[in-house]
């Protein structure tokens, strides 16, 4: 059994898999209510948290529920009465939460959810891709994608800081098995340091019998005066505020990452990460754990004389479009690898990167590859070969900007 005592005054290194890193992150944030339903590959997160609660290492309410829909409904209610809440899920569980994802965001509740990325049926598959969380991109949640287990733990801690400042829910996404079940060294911050970083949760409003309130009652199209004669939002005004909060959250995410760096020595001031991008003519774009393979591929391409670099998306919502356009300004070829598909179109990150480049003045060709669906292994060599193929098509004037290519054996 891995050592779970995190009460110390000094940070210490542990060998942790991604799920345990997420659970320890939530514990260090002193979550008060946890409601989750087990699903592969997220189950060890729920097991670890229930252990912490059972051993009284974490003074929280662990509420067992019959479904993911109920898990998020519990978190929503708990958040509304002023508790810091945490949940975790994967794949079909996240799909089952879909309705409540909208409700939590629309009520502006700072719930943090760990999404252990897994493919979605049909057919049945329990292995990794990012179709589950990408399919929830329009629900109004901030989405952060971790590259490794250290980033999972760090992102959960930052997630509460961001969520409770912006009153937006945050999804911390990490690749199933590749990170969730793989141990790697993780520096676990001390409880004292996390307490210094993260002040107690101050709800924007508290449901209290002493001061009864209605939340989310029928809100019609137009603004109207409430019983006290105050002109209140209609539906559109409330949804506008959600969009405005998402747009403005970039600054909060950056500031939370910067402050994290000052306290813990690992900075996250950017919504993107870069590897050898300063003079890159060819950019490999990835999100999540594929970063490691992308870095190896870029280094290999450099050795072969191609000026390649890697641009990684750490934050997918809010989409850092302007930063992406700036980072890709000097590139002539952008190769985007997606572990998801917006069926009937192309990979979601490629689609949005193309939109970000519109009007930015860059003339880069963009090529999209769909990889790693349902746990299909992606090697650095596959990425490098795909880049070389795209480069050769570009030089022959035969690069298709329209269709994503699938790296599979059809």
């Amino acid at each position, binding site marked *: 059994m891995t050592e779970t005592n995190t009460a110390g005054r000094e940070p210490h290194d542990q060998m942790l898999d991604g799920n345990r890193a997420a659970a320890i992150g939530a514990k260090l944030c002193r979550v008060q209510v946890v409601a989750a339903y087990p699903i592969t590959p997220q189950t060890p997160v729920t097991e670890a948290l229930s252990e912490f609660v059972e051993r009284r290492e974490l003074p929280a309410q662990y509420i067992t529920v019959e479904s993911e829909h109920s898990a998020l409904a519990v978190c929503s209610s708990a958040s509304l009465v002023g508790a810091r809440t945490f949940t975790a899920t994967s794949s079909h569980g996240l799909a089952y939460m879909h309705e409540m994802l909208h409700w939590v965001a*629309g*009520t*502006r509740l700072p719930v943090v959810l760990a999404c252990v990325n897994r493919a979605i049926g049909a057919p049945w598959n329990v292995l990794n891709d990012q179709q589950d969380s990408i399919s929830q991109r329009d629900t109004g949640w901030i989405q952060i994608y971790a590259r490794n287990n250290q980033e999972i733990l760090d992102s959960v801690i930052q997630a509460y800081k961001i969520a409770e400042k912006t*009153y937006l829910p945050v999804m911390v996404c990490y690749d199933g098995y590749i990170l969730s079940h793989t141990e790697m060294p993780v520096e676990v911050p001390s409880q004292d340091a996390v307490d210094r970083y993260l002040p107690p949760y101050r709800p*924007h*409003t508290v449901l209290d019998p002493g001061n*009864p*309130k*209605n*939340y*989310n*009652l*029928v*809100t*019609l199209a137009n*603004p*109207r005066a*409430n*019983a*006290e004669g*105050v*002109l*209140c*939002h*209609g539906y559109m*005004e*409330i949804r506008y*505020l959600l969009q405005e*909060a998402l747009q403005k959250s970039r600054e909060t995410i950056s500031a939370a990452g910067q402050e994290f760096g000052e306290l813990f020595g690992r900075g996250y001031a950017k919504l993107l990460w870069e590897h050898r991008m300063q003079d890159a003519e060819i950019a490999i774009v990835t999100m999540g754990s594929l970063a490691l393979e992308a870095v190896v591929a870029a280094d290999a391409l450099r050795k072969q004389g191609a000026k390649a670099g890697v641009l990684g998306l750490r934050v997918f919502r809010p989409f850092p479009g302007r930063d992406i356009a700036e980072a890709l300004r000097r590139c002539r070829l952008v190769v985007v690898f997606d572990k998801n598909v917006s069926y009937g179109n192309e990979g979601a990150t490629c689609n949005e990167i193309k939109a970000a480049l519109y009007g930015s003045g860059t003339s880069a060709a963009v090529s999209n590859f769909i990889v790693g669906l349902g746990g299909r292994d992606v090697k650095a060599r596959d990425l490098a070969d795909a880049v070389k193929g795209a480069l050769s098509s570009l030089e022959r004037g035969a690069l298709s900007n329209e269709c994503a290519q699938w790296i599979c054996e059809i």
Partner: protein
Amino acid sequence: MGTRDCGHICGESSPGIGEGGKTGEWRNSRPVIDEDKCTPARKNKPTCFLCWLFCPEVTISKTIPLRIDLEYCKGCGICAEVCPTRAIAMVDEEKFLC
């Protein structure tokens, strides 16, 4: 002036009359009470009041005679359904337009 000044960031209100809007504006037909048939009115005693009990919008008073608050009555017709003496008729709103 926009609605930002209300200070809310989600759908929020305090319980009170009219916090759901003037629901009477949706009505297609309104309840009209025949006091010759209405038991409390006919007997001049506080009795029956099933319509008061069942009205989901609390728009019927527990008085003699009964009063219906047409600003909030949605015209659902439950009162007419539960009235044991069939004293309440649902009359098309068109009849009340001048």
